[in-house]
């Protein structure tokens, strides 16, 4: 069973004067442990697609199965719970609670899951260590660089032991060197822990690091290619 299965997925926004079909008849399967980039020009529907997969938006057509479950049918609070336990999120910005330290930010999601204090602390420290921020656990987000903040966000996304991590333009606010480093780190987590990542990006240097690239154009899948099979990018 694929991790994620999209059947004929569509999303039309009726908010504007003219309805906008942001996602058009997308059918896609994503397997466990894949490292997939969703690319395409601005307005091509990347964010809309990720929001649909992440249960942040309801489709207007088609279906989304995550681990065999049709998430479009879940009630609001069940959907939030589903996100809490199955999906890790990294957004472009505003990921972190500024009054919490890096460690507390990572812990918070586990608190929502009801994990005990001791386990929370231990896991938060481990995760921050593995994203290379072992020395910044007690720093507050405003004291961290953009790249470091996104690393904390990745650690936070992993903390809930999700089935996969969704990252919408995680590198958009970073310079390309830092962006590359963040992607390398994500790729490493993918290899070492088998964590599935789905991320969107504009950045060619980031695209290079993906192993599967799904290209959107006007809301439809234009191409879906696999690259870097078995080799390691530097």
């Amino acid at each position, binding site marked *: 069973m694929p991790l994620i299965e999209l059947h004929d997925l569509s999303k039309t926004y009726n908010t504007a004067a003219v309805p906008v079909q942001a996602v058009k008849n997308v059918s896609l399967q994503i397997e466990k442990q894949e490292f997939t980039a969703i690319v395409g020009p601005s307005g091509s529907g990347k964010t809309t697609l990720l929001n649909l997969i992440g249960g942040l938006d309801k489709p207007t057509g088609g279906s989304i199965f995550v681990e065999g479950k049709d998430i479009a049918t879940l009630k*609001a609070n069940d959907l939030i719970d589903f996100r809490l336990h199955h999906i890790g999120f990294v957004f*472009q910005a505003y990921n972190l609670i500024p009054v*919490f330290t890096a460690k507390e930010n990572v812990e918070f999601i586990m608190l929502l899951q009801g994990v005990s204090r001791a386990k929370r602390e231990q896991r938060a420290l481990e995760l921050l260590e593995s994203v290379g921020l072992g020395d910044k656990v007690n720093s507050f987000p405003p004291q961290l660089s953009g790249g470091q903040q996104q690393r904390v966000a990745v650690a936070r996304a992993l903390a809930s032991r999700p089935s996969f991590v969704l990252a919408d333009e995680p590198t958009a606010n970073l310079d390309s060197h830092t962006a590359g480093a963040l992607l390398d780190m994500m790729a490493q987590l993918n290899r070492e822990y088998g964590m599935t990542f789905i991320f969107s990006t504009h950045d060619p240097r980031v695209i290079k690091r993906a192993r599967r690239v799904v290209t959107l154009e006007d809301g439809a899948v234009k191409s879906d290619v696999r690259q870097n099979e078995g080799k390691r990018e530097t």
Partner: protein
Amino acid sequence: MILSLAWKNIWRNKKRSLIIIVATALGLWGSLLSGAIWMGWGESMVDTAINRDLAHIQIHKPGYAQNKEIINYIPDGFRILEETKNLPGVKAVSGRTLVEGMAASPTSTFGVKIVGIVPAQAKTVTDIYKRLIEGEYFTGSGGRNPVVIGRKLADRLGLKLHSKIVLSFQDLDGSLNYAAGKIVGIYKTESGLFDQSNVFMRQADLFRLLNTKPLIHEIAIRAESARIMPQVYAAVKANYPQLAVHTWKELAPEVAYTSTAMEAFTYIFIGIILFALLFGITNTMLMAVIERFRELGVLIAVGMKKGRIFSMILLETILLSITGGVAGIVIGGLSIAYFAHTGIDLSLLASSLETFGVSTTLRPFLPLDMYIALPIMIVITASLSAILPAWKVVHIQPSEAIRMY
């Protein structure tokens, strides 16, 4: 962790939070202090009335209140006086012989109540003896028929200390008696009305003038404390079902009412202040959540349920309000304690206050239950203030909120 988050969130915009905290603190401080002054006023009215004349409990013959005739004395009064004196919880008792009559000077006359007392006994129940401004309270031999009158009556009759005063009253047979007394003391209480109508004599002198056996119309009982009064009252009432037993509250309902009304006023005043604060707190919290719209959107996106996010905003609002509230209660409590210690001197207003029967030194006070009720009221206010901001947060669409950049 949620608690610490709520607390830290309050301090993200220090200035804005401080403004509302200071407003809450000042609002409560002001309303507590003025409430305490009102209640101190009410209490002072009660205390002075009790100390002047009411005592805690009084016993009469039934019907005396309607028909204050000399014949309506308490049957077997002296035995009852002795018995009540020994009841548990009773601090002191005083038997009073009451005669309605006229006081006359060479220039004018005035209707008065002649109160026959045993001075040593009366002193244990009321404090008229402390209120003498001239002369003394039946201490010296004083000659025949020493009389203590109020300042107001002395003024009305144009009499001075050591002047002769002529009292007229009906005796038991209904025949009119005249007696000359000598003013040995002039007292002044907070109540002009009391001062102009109460004339004190020794019981023994009164009995001689009335040409009667000893009799009393009123037994005034002082309980060991106001708190124990209800038990004493119940005991006395049970012991003497044939007599009319009343507490001061029944004897002077207007005084009791004023005292309760002061408490009600205080609650209403605090209620109004809190109602005004409600809008300020709502506004502050609305600004706070609008500023954090994206961050809150992210929290909902990553899995914070509606109930949780609602409680987080509620908690934040309660913490914000209770911080100001506690500050207000503390400064309020301290300033009340300070003024209760020093007293607030109202002597500038004294002459107009006399009409109300209030002592000129006011000691503000606030009952303990108010210190308990207040935090509850603040939490209720905060919860009401939180509804709108929390409702907004619960309805955040995470996909929209995150897209806002």
